[in-house]
């Protein structure tokens, strides 16, 4: 049995920030990620971030990922296990991990779960035709592997991911036929939405996809306008020629380790699904088990990094590690998080978080 002070599952923005902040206070950390690289979803994010300088505004996700990953790899207090999958959390607080065909048992004194989220999908006829993708897959193909998913895309969902991926498709030379959105409003930041609209891509709000059509692959999509009760309006159907239908309809937290650990969970639609109850330290109802990033509620990468920092600081501090600036550092992160979640943009998150505090 491997003993360690802090085990972190997930090497995305939250997990990386947690590892760096916990080790900075002196804690010994194991960071576990199932991929062969660190950075999580950041590595697909070729656009510049918003926010303040402290929140790495105007930097690109892919550069942030590289910088954090290098810092983690060079840190002697952090042991990195990549291509390592957390198979389960057990009653005695043991974490089982598979790496390179071997299974190891790890017993951490503190455990930080930063497993992120999974994409949601939609139900419509022919949703299994080749050419129907999740936005995450399209972003991986285009931004990581440099492969076009097709020639002409219908994007379903005008949230940040749908609109940003649309823009990145345009940059890659792929045509975007339209973006459709069920809600009456565009969810994405206006600066991104304005960019795609300027490029000539129509955004249809209050529209949904009725079905995909094509023999053996997507040839077109049929869309329709929605009424106030989200029902398709007869006669409003429109055919959109496209060989790719890209679904960007939200994410849901990846919480299985939390359920296994016995964390108290609650369904909060504003946060994407079932999330753990947590206190202001980001500790769950299971003592010593902390959460950070999308697993505790779908938000975005800047907030995930802040939560990671907070969970890392708190987990290390609970082990007795301290520094002259501990209280200030913690307060600084809390202030930044509050800033990110302020204003109308953060309203949904604030409403969600209000339902899951311990």
């Amino acid at each position: 049995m491997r003993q360690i002070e802090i085990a972190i599952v997930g090497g995305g923005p939250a997990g990386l920030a947690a590892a760096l902040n916990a080790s900075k206070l002196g804690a010994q950390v194991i960071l576990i990620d199932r991929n062969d690289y660190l950075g999580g979803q950041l590595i697909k994010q070729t656009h510049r971030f918003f926010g303040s300088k402290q929140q790495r505004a105007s930097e690109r996700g892919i550069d942030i990922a590289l910088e954090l990953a290098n810092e983690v790899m060079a840190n002697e207090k952090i042991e990195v296990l990549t291509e390592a999958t957390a198979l389960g959390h057990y009653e005695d607080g043991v974490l089982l991990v598979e790496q390179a065909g071997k299974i190891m048992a790890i017993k951490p004194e503190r455990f930080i779960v930063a497993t992120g989220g999974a994409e949601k999908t939609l139900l419509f006829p022919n949703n299994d035709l080749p050419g129907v993708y999740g936005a995450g897959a399209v972003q991986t193909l285009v931004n990581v592997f440099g492969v076009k998913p097709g020639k002409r895309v219908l994007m379903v969902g005008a949230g940040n991911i749908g609109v940003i991926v649309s823009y990145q498709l345009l940059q890659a030379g792929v045509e975007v036929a339209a973006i459709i959105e069920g809600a009456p409003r565009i969810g994405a930041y206006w600066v991104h939405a304005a960019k795609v609209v300027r490029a000539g891509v129509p955004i249809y709000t209050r529209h949904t996809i009725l079905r995909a059509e094509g023999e053996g692959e997507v040839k077109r999509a049929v869309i329709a306008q929605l009424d106030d009760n989200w029902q398709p309006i007869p006669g409003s159907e429109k055919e959109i020629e496209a060989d790719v239908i890209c679904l960007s309809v939200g994410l849901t937290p990846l919480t299985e380790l939390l359920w296994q650990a016995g964390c108290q969970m609650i369904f909060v639609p504003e946060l994407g699904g079932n999330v753990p109850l947590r206190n202001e330290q980001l500790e769950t109802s299971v003592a010593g088990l902390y959460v950070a990033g999308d697993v505790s509620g779908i938000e975005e990468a800047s907030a995930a990094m802040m939560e990671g920092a907070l969970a890392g600081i708190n987990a290390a501090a609970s082990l007795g590690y301290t520094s002259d600036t501990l209280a200030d550092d913690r307060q600084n992160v809390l202030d930044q998080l509050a800033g990110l979640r302020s204003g109308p943009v953060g309203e949904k998150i604030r409403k969600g978080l209000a339902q899951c505090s311990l």
Partner: protein
Amino acid sequence: MCQEKDKNLTILCRCEDITLDEIREYINQGITDLEQLKRLLRVGMGPCQGRTCTPLLVNEIARATGRPVKDIPLTVFRQPTTAVKLGVLAGGINHE
């Protein structure tokens, strides 16, 4: 070749190839418990372990029963979280 009846299918669980119509048929027969649907249809038991279909399935049950989504019980999240080769498990745990 694809049969005419197999056209225009709406797939709810893509790992186990289960359609929305099949799910609704079972729900209409009164089977509105996720656990039972799973045992009868293998829905959510494929490689993704329900990560994709469970939210869709819960929505269907909620709609059919008129219960809020938060009140639909989920199934137990057992270890292992993902597929693991039997040979790996048989190799035992490295306790160092």
